[in-house]
């Protein structure tokens, strides 16, 4: 199987108050699915975004981000997804998100991002 650990970041020592973040992502190459696990926050969002950038720059036309195992996402995390979507669109590609937890779904709904990432309105 094309399952490969891209990166696993330990707690980032960004500042005393910003130490919880931890995010992992597996990339299944055959379907271009990124499976994110953990927190996507101000500490981990830049790495997460860069991982998506690499996939986009690698020429994938459709990338799916599986959010089923994301425990927390804040506005920086949403910012990483939006930045990646903007980059994808410039290259004629698109990013969709799948398996949103109910609280993440609420956040996508409030921030008007369901349409942006191809999530059906309930």
């Amino acid at each position, binding site marked *: 199987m094309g399952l490969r650990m891209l990166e696993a970041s330990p707690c980032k020592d960004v500042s005393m108050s910003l130490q919880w973040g931890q995010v992992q992502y597996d990339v299944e190459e055959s379907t271009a699915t990124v499976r994110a696990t953990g927190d996507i926050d101000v500490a981990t*969002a830049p790495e997460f975004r860069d991982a998506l950038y690499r996939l986009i720059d690698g020429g994938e036309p459709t990338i799916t981000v599986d959010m089923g195992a994301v425990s927390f996402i804040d506005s920086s995390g949403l910012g990483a997804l939006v930045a990646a979507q903007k980059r994808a669109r410039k290259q004629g590609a698109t990013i969709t998100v799948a398996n949103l937890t109910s609280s993440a779904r609420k956040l996508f709904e409030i921030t008007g991002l369901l349409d942006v990432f191809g999530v059906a309105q309930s």
Partner: protein
Amino acid sequence: MASVAEQRLTLALEAAGLGTWTWDMATATTEWDVRLEELHGLSPGGFGGTFDDWVASLHPDDRAECVRRVQRALESPGPYVLLHRTTWLDGSIHWIECRGRVTVDDHGMPTGTIGVALDVTERERRDAMVEVELEEKHDLVTSLQQALLPSEIPSVPGVRVAARYVAAGSTVVGGDWYAVVPLPDGRLGLGIGDVAGHGLSAVAEMAGVRFSLRALAMGATDAEDVLTRLNDAVRLFEHDAFITALYGIVDPRNRVWSFSSAGHCPTVVRCANGTTSLIATAAQPPLGLDGAYHRQDCQLEPGSMLVLYTDGLIERRCESITDGTNRLIDVVRSGPTDPEALADHLLAELVGAGAHDDDVALLVVAIA
């Protein structure tokens, strides 16, 4: 003739710049080698040779602590470390780090101390400089933030506004902002937003967005025009930022609240009878993507209050945003009716004194 081992030791001490001492309590003598004398700015043989002479060589502010530490080491014999200053005859101050060990007799009773000492003035100077630099950087970002978010809020007759900004964990400034713009037709423009991230870059992006919004607000009569044109500016100038924003115009004559939201948290409204709820807000994406924004009009009753806020007020790491929103509604419902008092109440109840993850911007608006 010194043994090979002794010669090796001397070489090592010289190479490391280490001075050594031996304190013998029985004979009440303290021996320093020439390097330790050098570390204290003394010529060979310049040290007096007693414990009291050592104490006298210490910086006055460090004496009590050093003596206390040596006494404590004598009480339970073992290694100890001292960091102290010494003033040379020329008036210059030098930092010395001593690593000592208590010597004991056959019965385990202390007989004195031996140890090595090193000049650490450069290290201490560097550490102090780094600390000052960090402090200056934080002061700079904080004062920039304060200059960008003035606490003096413009107003129009019939509308009172209280504004607050709280940095994350009281030290990390972020990109949350508010803007209050009196319009020539007697209405009041109110904007709030969140630029994701922390630190100087977030503050700089926030400043760009906030000044753009203020300029656009003064020249436009419609909330949706302001947000659509702000979006154009963001797409041109701030393309990497993630920015949510809400801009609305309140008319004190007919109490219409006309607003448009770019992915921002919905506003809380409290009626004069205490009924409190979220204003149903059409989902529109954050700034920076394609598309135009639409406006919603909302008829307010006399005596209504609006609470505009950023997600730092409701977001908790271990609970859903719905729970956080419901808590905000409860606190608004039971809070005071004066806008300044309600703003303080909200921060006290929802932000508190502990470390919080995110910064908070808040506008509380009372309509007569």
